């Protein structure tokens, strides 16, 4: 094993106290705990090489309600501890959720046994001698979120359900508060640790005959930013106004997408199944499957003209960017999991830097991971896509958009959105929880849900009006070690949006 002085390449984020002092029992692993695990693993390892570990430790408190009463609430702790043994380039990994010594020993043994089945790759530890990528250190820990207990959750739900019950409607919903500590550490002493909280609240209000349905939701790291009562009023209002919808024929409509609907569709380009559309690594390795819309032909690295970098690809009023330090969409500065990427070293994990993907309609950056950067761009930092983004908007409110619409549709949100064609970014999905017909500058009646078949690029090139951007609901599943992908998007008025079928679902 090559000994490399740890401090030279050590740029871990400042130590911070993860659990406030007044909490009796730690609910997730602190930075010290993670160092302890890494040190124990290094001691337990045999057979040379080095050991790396990634850790996601989570506490979740939640409450669910339906039919105007709470049906359960829970408090769950869990860990995902991924132990990687690299023995002269041969790699084995084992995952556990238990932090006891024996569990760690067994994980190290399992990883070593798997590594023995792999070929050794000389010099594969060269990457460990590079300095760590610098990472941002946003502050995303909220005591209001961490301290929200079952009693507070019950009190909130009680208010929300009373609002619905008072007008004879049925409310169902979910509130979750979570705290996460995540770290990546290895036996060279390289380490990263970050801790954050998450809060989410969403609800569906339906009438007892099932003829109307309304929804509202929001997530934020800070529970104080979520006004549950206001959300409940929106959901209730949408439910009442969506009852007894009429049928309009599928076809092309001037369509106002509320911010949530914009996130559900356009967000796919960044965080969803189309997320690899802006990813160099994925598109360049595709020889036999269609490339994304931003790639002209095969090519790698700095090859000129293979991508549409520098070309205008959408309406020039649109800028899409992401920055972990953004006060409104701050997100963790790294993820511990490198999805299917280059994983010979745990420290090729994605580290997120500020980036502008689309600048006034022009494609300015494409994502790549650190492995790619080292291999093709001779640089030490990747430009991975976290899935979080903000999109610029305009001044026109949804009310103003309605006033200026002769005949069109107003969409609350989209459901079950799936990709049909990568190259054209064509998607299909359903409207849900509130769809209305606009006639002569006013909402005239609720409309039965429809399926749409539309391309994101068509949408982003056929914008009539944009409204003020706002934070929407796009939570992650904390217990599955996802990192948050906060999104800010504007409402959009689109020309000729394509609805292809009627849907009876309410």
């Amino acid at each position, binding site marked *: 094993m090559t000994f490399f002085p740890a401090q030279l390449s050590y740029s871990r984020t400042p130590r911070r106290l993860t659990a406030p002092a007044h909490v009796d029992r730690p609910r997730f692993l602190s930075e010290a705990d993670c160092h302890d695990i890494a040190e124990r693993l290094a001691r337990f390892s045999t057979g040379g090489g080095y050991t790396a570990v990634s850790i996601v430790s989570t506490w979740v408190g939640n409450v669910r309600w339906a039919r105007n009463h709470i049906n359960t609430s829970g408090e769950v*702790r*869990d*860990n995902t501890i991924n132990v990687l043994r690299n023995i002269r380039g041969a790699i084995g990994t084992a*995952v556990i959720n238990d932090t006891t010594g024996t*569990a760690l020993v067994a994980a190290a043994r399992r990883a070593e046994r798997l590594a023995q089945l792999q*070929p050794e790759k000389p010099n594969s530890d060269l990457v460990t001698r590079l300095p760590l990528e610098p990472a941002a250190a946003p502050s995303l820990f909220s005591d209001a979120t961490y301290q929200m207990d079952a009693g507070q959750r019950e009190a909130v739900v009680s208010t929300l*359900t009373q609002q619905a019950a008072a007008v004879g409607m049925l409310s169902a919903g979910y509130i979750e508060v979570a705290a996460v500590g995540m770290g990546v550490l290895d036996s060279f002493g390289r380490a990263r640790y970050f801790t954050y909280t998450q809060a989410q609240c969403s609800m569906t209000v339906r009438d007892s005959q099932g003829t109307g349905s309304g929804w509202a939701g929001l997530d934020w790291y800070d529970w104080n930013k979520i006004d549950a009562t206001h959300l409940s009023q929106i959901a209730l209002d949408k439910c009442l106004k969506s009852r007894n919808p009429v049928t309009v024929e599928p076809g092309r409509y001037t369509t106002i997408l509320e911010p949530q609907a914009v996130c559900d569709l356009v967000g796919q380009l960044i965080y969803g199944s189309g997320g690899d559309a802006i990813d160099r690594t994925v598109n360049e390795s595709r020889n036999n499957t269609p490339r994304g819309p931003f790639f002209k032909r095969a090519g790698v690295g700095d090859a000129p003209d293979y991508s549409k970098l520098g070309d205008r690809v959408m309406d020039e009023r649109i800028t899409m960017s992401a920055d972990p330090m953004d006060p409104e969409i701050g997100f963790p500065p790294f993820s511990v999991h490198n999805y299917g990427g280059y994983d010979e070293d745990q420290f090729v994990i994605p580290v997120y830097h500020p980036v502008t993907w689309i600048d006034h309609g022009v494609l300015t950056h494409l994502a790549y991971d650190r492995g790619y950067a080292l291999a093709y761009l001779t640089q030490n930092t990747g430009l991975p896509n976290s899935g979080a983004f903000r999109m610029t908007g305009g001044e026109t409110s949804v009310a103003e958009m309605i006033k200026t619409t002769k005949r069109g549709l107003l969409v609350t949100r989209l459901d079950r959105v799936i990709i049909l064609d990568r190259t054209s970014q*064509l998607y299909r999905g359903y409207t849900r929880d509130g769809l209305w017909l606009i006639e002569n500058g006013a909402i005239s009646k609720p409309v039965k849900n429809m399926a749409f078949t539309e391309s994101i690029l068509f949408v982003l090139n056929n914008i009539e009006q944009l409204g003020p951007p706002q934070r929407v609901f796009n939570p992650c599943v904390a217990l599955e070690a996802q990192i948050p992908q906060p999104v800010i998007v504007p409402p959009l008025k689109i020309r000729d949006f394509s609805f292809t079928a009627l849907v009876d679902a309410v």
Partner: protein
Amino acid sequence: MKWIAGVNAPWSRRAWLTQNAVAVLVGRYATRAPLLRTTVDPTASSGASPLADVGDDDWAALARRAVDAAGQAGADYADARLTRTIQHRYPYGDPLQQETETVGIGVRALVKGYWGFAASPSGDLTEVEQLAQHAVTQAKTNARGTPRTVDITQFPRVVGTWSTPVRIDPFAVSVEEKVTFMRYWEECARRVKLYIDPMVSHIEFTRQDRMLVTSTGTQCAQRCYESGGKIVCRAPGDMSQGLQGSLDVAGIETAGRGWELFLDANIPDQIRAMPDEIQAGVALQKAGSAVTIGRYPLVCDGATMAALLGATLGIATQLDRSLGYEANAGGTSFLNDPLSMLGTFNIASPSVTVTANRTASAQLATVKWDDEGVAPPEYTLIKDGILQDFQTTCEQAAWLAPYYSKHGRDIHSNGCAAAEDALNITLQHMPNLALVSNPSSVHIEDLVSNVKNGIMVEHGMAFQVDSQVRSGLLTSNPFDTRSRLREIKNGRLGRVLAGGAILFDTLEFWRHVIAVGGAETQAVFSTSQYPWGGRWGKQFPLAMLPVKGEPPQATSHSVQAAAATIINQPLINVLRKA
């Protein structure tokens, strides 16, 4: 070509011998293999954590302590579940071989009709007491709401142990032996000038040990196995042929079986026969035709009907969805008034009878007891096209009491309580389903021969089923090389159709089933809760796991179905805009 490096790894003879020596030694000292303890393969289990180190007696003691503590804290009813989930995945591609072992303990408490839950990945006796107190505190807090009742006499008392009957415990087969087989299959492919696609091909094994202790006296321990994999052989060269130039090995879909799944599938012989089959597939594809939209009669094979049944009626007959308990999660159901629909609602044609069970051999929802200790009965959801019952748990069974009483039936759970693991609260989850086949012998060819101008769906996939299960799309499965739509002309199979999908309306589809095939057309479609990629894999939308609840959780189940003919179904071009 990274994958070649991974696959052609130098085979270390020293490592082989060392590992086998260890296995032999351990085998000698492993005098017994009691439930909930791994002894055969020392590397399969982490050994000595407070949860993992203990035998069943200690597990029971932990669970018992939790249940007692919940009782002392004021619970009307409580249960404690402990799980250990071991997953071994061996891919052909990059060295992502991974062995995962997670443990958990979850305590659920009921106070005045309200539930509370607390769970943790590990625990000693003190910690489980704290979990129990947390669960009770939450239940008590929630019970400030409008009074409600849960009939706790529904929760049974059972004692026992059970294990999925596997012939060869896959965890007793060393990783070296498994990898030797994988390389042998690869060599078989190389000899017939094919290669195994490293991007998707893998084998995997899962075992979940479950201990349930309840305040009604239940104490049962179960060990559930799943084995499965995907091996796709490809002809090198013309990559533009895409999936048509490749073929899946059949018979290794995930099942409740052991290592014998791979031995019985006769993989070498399958691979040897593949070049001809692949060539035939490519020729069919080349002669393919674009779709002509319109309404057609369909013949769906058993696998397609199984996928459709699971994605439509299997979801719609979940009582919690039907009543709106999942409204903010997966959605609701078109069966939105259970008490008035039961026994009368015409959900399908008279030739459709659907049963549910958790006993079918090698199927994924099969257990001896559900997560409330109920021995799941085999029951009929739909008889001759009429809705007869719902999927229920102990609490939910009472919601149908008026219907059961009116028909002189006992009120009892249908045994559908389940959870992904002990870190997730128990919910109602899908059992194994079966579309009852025609008692007479009816082959696929018989169904096809009765169709003049129609479409055959082979290994089809139902997707984008809406939130009320009213409609969805049926099309070929891009991840299954045997999946395709073919035209039927004058009772004979014709060209392959490209780019088409059936836009089905759930009720119109099931009410238009005019013929069901015989037992010879049956196939099983299984959905495993352990998607490829493990915990991380669940994040990929392509996993298309049917999840329930918030936070979302998934469980495994299988659906068995015979082929069927369905008339008057709309074929659309999904890529076409308005």
